[in-house]
């Protein structure tokens, strides 16, 4: 059953929210110890909340769009009811005094945040192995990573702890784990969802997105979180249509960018995606080979922008106001250094140092400015492509979930894993990872659309899944 059907049953009184939560609780009790999808969980309070919603329904009162649905929220997203660690020792025990905008919106629609999902430390990783609170395991194959950085969110959806979850995506962090775990993950257009309350990794790339076990779930949660808000100045203040999108495959041109296939992409992955493309063609869509020439520089440029912004965004963690503290009697410079040395993990320190370097006098023009130019080129390449085609389809990840510890010692090969997802963030576009392998280890197919075309992307995913 998908999230929309569950809500409808709850609203109609055919199912109680509390009853459904108990179902989820059973799965959590069975699987969570193995999977480690959550950093924090509060099932008791969640059940109380579910009972309140059931009571409202019984009394005939209005309930929200997410009435009684259990939702996992990535621990990079601030919540007043849960500590928010972002997977780091630096924020161990940090209890934010406020809710992020997306969480407020979920609460307003009677969704129930049951816990905080594990993630790579400060969202820096593609495997959820850099979390200070231990790796999350892939529910499909527990020897493998769930992907990252929103690995806990995807894994929790996959094993049934909750039908919906929130992740955040800077270079693929929603789509990668969706692909590895075999669920859906949407990275909305930059500015479509308020970032207020999302702990910033790279502000100009970060975007919060829904993860779900169904297209209906993606659509439902996306509609709730993408509403208006005035706390994020980069948020685009446009009310979305909401009307039903009609999409006819016969009118559609699907772009196949050659740079996203071939070298570096696992053969089975490519085959599987092409199989789906063939089916689309059979159903009437036109396939068209296109080119994104600046793709060549996308990964390096992405890492320069992301690390540079991260070096500044993570400067606030100094042990003075909140989070990890170091008891020592020394001048503040020494205390700061010690706090940051001890509180941050290795990958985070690496990225801060690289970013600091890239922004330094004498290097800024060489790295940061150049990376911004690549970004402009990428935007142009995609703009050009969307004049010819309606959607672009690529594999989400170049390979399937790899084994735990397989790549963690080799940061470069991990960075390479993001090659197909980062161009989308650089261009600020929306894209959805759709599971397209039903046997064995999941494979994800990525639909990239033009800005603010989330609803059309979702509709195309429906068409792909239609038998």
């Amino acid at each position, binding site marked *: 059953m998908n999230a929309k059907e569950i809500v409808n049953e709850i609203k109609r009184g055919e199912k109680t929210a509390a009853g459904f939560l108990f179902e989820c609780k059973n799965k959590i009790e069975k699987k969570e110890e193995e999977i480690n999808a959550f950093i924090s969980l509060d099932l008791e309070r969640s059940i109380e909340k579910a009972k309140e919603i059931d009571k409202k329904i019984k009394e005939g009162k209005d309930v929200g769009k997410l009435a009684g649905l259990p939702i996992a929220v990535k621990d990079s997203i601030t919540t007043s009811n849960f500590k928010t660690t972002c997977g780091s020792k630096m924020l161990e025990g940090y209890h934010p005094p*406020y809710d*992020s905008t997306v969480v407020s919106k979920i609460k307003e629609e009677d969704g129930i945040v049951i816990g905080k999902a594990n993630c790579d430390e400060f969202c820096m990783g593609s495997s959820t192995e850099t979390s200070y609170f231990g790796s999350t395991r892939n529910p499909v194959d527990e020897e493998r990573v769930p992907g990252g950085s929103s690995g806990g969110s995807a894994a929790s959806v996959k094993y049934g702890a909750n039908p919906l979850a929130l992740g955040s995506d800077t270079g693929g962090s929603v789509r990668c784990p969706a692909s590895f775990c075999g669920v859906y993950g949407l990275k909305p257009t930059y500015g479509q969802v308020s970032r207020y309350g999302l702990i910033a990794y790279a502000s100009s790339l970060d975007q919060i997105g829904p993860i779900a076990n169904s297209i209906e779930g993606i659509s439902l949660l996306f509609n709730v979180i993408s509403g208006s808000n005035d706390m*994020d*100045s*980069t948020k685009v203040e446009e009310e979305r249509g909401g009307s039903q999108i009609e999409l006819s495959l016969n009118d559609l041109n699907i772009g196949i960018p050659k740079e996203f296939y071939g070298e570096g992409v696992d053969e089975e992955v490519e085959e599987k995606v092409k199989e789906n493309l063939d089916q689309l063609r059979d159903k009437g869509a036109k396939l068209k080979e296109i080119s994104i020439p600046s793709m060549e520089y996308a990964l390096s440029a992405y890492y320069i922008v992301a690390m540079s*912004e991260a070096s*500044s965004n993570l*400067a606030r963690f100094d042990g003075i106001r909140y989070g990890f503290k170091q008891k020592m009697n020394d001048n503040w410079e020494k205390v700061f250094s010690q706090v940051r040395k001890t509180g941050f993990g290795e990958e985070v320190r690496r990225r801060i140092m690289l970013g600091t370097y890239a922004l330094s*006098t004498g290097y800024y023009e060489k790295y940061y400015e150049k990376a911004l130019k690549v970004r402009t080129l990428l935007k142009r390449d995609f703009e050009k492509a969307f004049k010819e085609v309606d959607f672009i389809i690529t594999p989400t990840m170049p390979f399937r979930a790899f084994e735990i510890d397989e790549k963690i010692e080799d940061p470069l090969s991990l960075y390479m894993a993001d090659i197909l997802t980062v161009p989308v963030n650089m261009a600020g576009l929306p894209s959805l990872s759709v599971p397209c392998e039903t046997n064995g280890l999941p494979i994800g197919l990525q639909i990239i659309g033009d800005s603010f075309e989330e609803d059309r992307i979702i509709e195309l995913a429906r068409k792909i899944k239609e038998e």
Partner: protein
Amino acid sequence: MDIVIGLEVHIQLQTNTKLFCGCSTNYRDSKPNKHTCPICLGLPGSLPKLNQKALEYGIKAGLALDCNIADSMQFHRKNYFYPDLPKGFQISQYDSPLATEGTVELSNGKKIEIRRIHLEEDPGRLEHPAGKKQSYVDYNRSGVPLLEIVTEPDMSSPQEARDFLRKIREIMEYLKIFDGGLEGSLRCDANISIEGGGRAEVKNISSYKGAEKALNYEITRQKNLMRRGKEVKRETRHFNEEQGITKPSREKEEEHDYRYFPEPDLPRVTISKEKIKEIEESLPELPDEKRDRFQKEYGLSQDQAESLTTSLFLADFYEEIACQIDPELTATWVADTLKGELSYRGINLKESNIEKEDLLFILRYLKEDEITEKGAIKVMRSTLDENKKPEKIIEEENLRSISLDEISEIAKRVIKENPEAIEDYRQGKEKAVNYLVGQVMKETNGRADPGETNKLIQKQLEEID
């Protein structure tokens, strides 16, 4: 030897709320960390949101200093670590500031070029209580809007620098965007060099007098080095206001790399022509304009007009009285007498007890000869010192002028009582008259008009002849 001085002035804008959040800017009378929120504390996940009022104030300031206002501007992050800086960076502006290329005219007629004006956030404040090992941080000030005004190195003496700061204060107070009376509301850094030597950047100047003092100290220091044939190094120095000296900075500022980059959380801000025009049309009369108008409209000397326009409060005080009574008389009493009495007491007009109605009352009485000039000064002093209404003072201290008839009566008596003075007068000793006038004044407690009394006594003495 040519002296070259440039200033970077920071003034706090008097908005009700902070630059990027809704917290109150009133940090001076508050408990530490009371006016804070996730945004000005830089809590993870919070985002800045530009205060439109601060932008409007910035545009006002730019227009008043004759600057070009940018069509669009960008905020940048200035990255450095300090315990009072909650995000590890300050949101400031870099290569795309709010305004550029303005001018300020000094009292000596010299024009000082403004290079740029930009908006930025104030950091929090550190406190180091005496006798304690710890320091404390108060983030109430964190996020208060600052306007940074950077001049070209156009000033050539500490007096000019001080005059520049005074002008800036006047203009900003006229715009009602700044209160120079608040402690720490104006801070500045000064660059100073003497021909042939390196440039010193003096930081931590927090007052108008301080600027002059620091610069004078620097000139002496740099000249002494040169005289002894030593090199004047290019360096950053810290001004110690209490000791009146500058010292080399402990931190090596020149090694700082602030790693400026565009603030990704704040999109470029576009400033429309209409908005600029609208603000321009709402600009009040500025000090120089008011000074010229006072001269023309009220027939004042340039000095008087200048003196009366140094603050908007003073200028309004003057003008309201001047409109109801003789403007020139009012000018003399406000610019000379009252300002003199205030500066003797070390207070300003706003802080003093005297109200417009009080001075108007005094001047009316003076004009109608109800009190003498001396009496008027007495009333003014008592109003200032005892916070009493002039009417009451005149009553209590018996200061009302005496009629000519009364004076005549007293003069008669005084002459009668001083036969030796009459004798002196007959022998041509003019001083005798002065003595007798003095006696009348004494008898009348100063209420008699000295000129009239003199005339009366002379007349009476002649009548005795």
